[in-house]
């Protein structure tokens, strides 16, 4: 059953076993897994329920407004400011993501074992949870028919230089490369929770409430007893009704910014002081290569390959075509000739990005009136890594035959030959000159055995509040260096399993 703010005429007051807040990578998995184990589950989502049929690839603005938080216009304050994107719709960021799937790298799990005592998170013990997720969202290589030129060009460049590439695994069922992943897959090829976990949750008798923003977690004697929220009109943003849910178990899955904000708003503090801190973002540098040959990067699958040669250094790279409105933001220039430049290069370019496994940290600050501010300070190590990643991508493009490369630096935005790549090192560049963006926000409620070091325990329950769980990207104790959705989903599957194993503990 789905209840939307458009249908409500009076306040909602309900009781259930489990309330899950946020229907993204973590929340959708938790809701489905627990509902299928016979628990009564209510899943609350701030955004709307948009079906595959409603995705409209001719209106980018409509997609941004309907599917993204703040229409995609959110940033982390720092030097430089970093734009980041997250979903606000049923399925959360998974509805608008590129569909790349990775298991958690062994080196990351090892680090979490050593530093945070997460000894149960070994590759072997995580295997069944990853496997389950992979089956449900159909993780597999891309189809032959869906291959596109930009990925082949990236591979051509990498092959010439002898760099290792990885044929990507994506969650899809006959994805034919419409390449509209980030505005909602209009063919139904991508298999995010919207078309997998959420329908299964509803089938298992779960109740989904949409356009409902949870404002507070209800607490009694250091135990969570449900949530309070409001039903919001999606256009006017007016409050249409109040919502009160009483539950035995409360699971917060609002993403790495909204989860700590909700906990803080509810008066929860962590003895570790880590709540809202340790925000990692996988900073992305966007690099554009222009070629003589026609490419039509928008025809074919998103990121068929990633370059993994530098993964141990903390860099992976891929190409990812985006609609013109967002593509045009990559250019530092404006004015006369911009349209002509776009005309000349749009179908002749490759738009790539390097993902950096960051050690810089950010913070989520909760302000009055339900407002959140995020900060992030790029450190010297990550700045150097961003420079290196940019140089590597430029080198790969030139090796593949690019005639020009646009760089993300304010004072060095164009180079015209492989010899000029060195300028990235010889030009005086400062972090503030760098354009960064992020689509992977993590950390902020880190997991660990020690309550002085972490916010939640190894099963995702808060050290300081009973019956209150976190199951989203905020659990990560560190940056993971690869696309995170599968790790989030596998951890949520594991938590759901642990909750149902110990259910009698909560049903009092």
């Amino acid at each position: 059953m789905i209840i939307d703010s458009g249908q409500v005429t009076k306040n909602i007051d309900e009781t259930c076993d489990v309330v899950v807040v946020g229907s993204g990578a973590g929340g959708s998995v938790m809701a489905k897994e627990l509902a299928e184990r016979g628990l009564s589950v209510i899943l609350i989502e701030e955004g709307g329920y948009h079906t595959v049929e409603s995705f409209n690839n001719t209106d980018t603005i409509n997609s941004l407004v309907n599917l993204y938080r703040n229409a995609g216009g959110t940033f982390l304050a720092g030097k430089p400011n970093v734009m980041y994107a997250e979903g606000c719709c049923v399925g959360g960021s998974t509805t608008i993501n590129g569909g790349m799937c990775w298991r958690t790298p062994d080196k990351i799990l090892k680090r979490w074992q050593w530093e945070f005592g997460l000894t149960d998170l070994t590759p072997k013990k995580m295997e069944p949870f990853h496997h389950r997720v992979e089956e449900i969202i159909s993780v597999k290589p891309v189809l032959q028919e869906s291959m596109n030129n930009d990925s082949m060009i990236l591979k051509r460049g990498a092959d010439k230089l002898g760099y290792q590439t990885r044929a990507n695994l994506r969650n899809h069922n006959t994805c034919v490369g419409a390449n509209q992943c980030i505005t909602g897959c209009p063919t139904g090829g991508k298999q995010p929770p919207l078309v997998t976990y959420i329908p299964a949750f509803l089938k298992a008798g779960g109740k989904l409430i949409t356009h409902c923003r949870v404002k507070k977690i209800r607490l009694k004697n250091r135990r969570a007893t449900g949530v309070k929220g409001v039903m919001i009109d999606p256009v006017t943003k007016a409050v249409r009704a109040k919502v009160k849910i009483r539950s035995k178990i409360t699971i917060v899955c609002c993403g790495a910014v909204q989860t700590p904000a909700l906990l803080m708003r509810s008066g929860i503090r962590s003895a570790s002081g880590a709540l809202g801190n340790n925000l990692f973002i996988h900073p992305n540098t966007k690099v554009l290569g222009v070629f003589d040959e026609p490419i039509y990067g928008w025809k074919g699958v998103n990121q068929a390959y990633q370059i993994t040669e530098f993964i141990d250094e903390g860099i992976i790279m891929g190409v990812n075509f985006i609609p013109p409105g967002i593509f045009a933001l990559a250019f530092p220039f404006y004015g006369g000739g911009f349209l002509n430049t776009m005309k000349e290069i749009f179908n002749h370019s490759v738009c790539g990005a390097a993902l950096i496994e960051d050690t810089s940290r950010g913070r989520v600050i909760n302000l009055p009136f339900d407002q959140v501010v995020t900060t992030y300070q790029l450190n010297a190590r990550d700045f150097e890594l961003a420079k290196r990643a940019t140089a590597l991508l430029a080198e790969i493009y030139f090796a593949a035959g690019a005639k020009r490369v646009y760089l993300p630096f304010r004072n060095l935005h164009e180079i015209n030959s492989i010899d000029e790549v060195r300028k990235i090192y010889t030009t005086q560049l400062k972090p503030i000159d760098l354009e960064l963006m992020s689509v992977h926000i993590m950390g902020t409620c880190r997991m660990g055995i020690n309550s002085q070091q972490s916010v939640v325990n190894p099963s995702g329950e808060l050290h300081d509040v009973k019956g209150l769980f976190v199951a989203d990207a905020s659990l990560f104790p560190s940056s993971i260096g690869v696309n995170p959705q599968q790790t989030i989903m596998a951890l949520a599957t594991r938590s759901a399993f642990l909750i149902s194993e110990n259910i009698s503990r909560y049903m009092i």
Partner: protein
Amino acid sequence: MKRLTFPKSLEPVFSALAKVLVPAQDDLILEGFEAHFFFNFGRIFNELPPIFRWGFIWGIRFFDWFPVLFGFGLNRFSHLSFESAKKYVDAWANGRLGVCREFFKTLKAMVILVYFSEPKVWEVIGYAPENHLKERIEMRKKILSGGEEKVHWPHEEETNA
């Protein structure tokens, strides 16, 4: 409290700004879709958090009213000649004041995003997603009806690093 939405009174400022940021060859940029441009602009604006909306409106007013501080006489930006408007915009984009540069970056991003999301502009640059989608949907139907998918690589190759 009334929700702060994009005020119509700021449209002339954005019109002037758009003309500097994205002029087509013949300067016809917004003609024909100006109303749609502002409609979309308003939609993005209305989604921003209140603190941004508030800051944005006052920032724009400042931008419009104070060319004098940058040596452009007593005119408002929206009344400057095209040449002066260009120079004024350059002063914000490349000036020494980080706050002005950052604010300008946001302004520019919004204008460029909305402008290059217009279907008429897509036509000019050769982006035709609608036809592409139709083709791909047909392709998918064919593959699905033909039974098995042919994946590009054997699964065994795909190990984590």
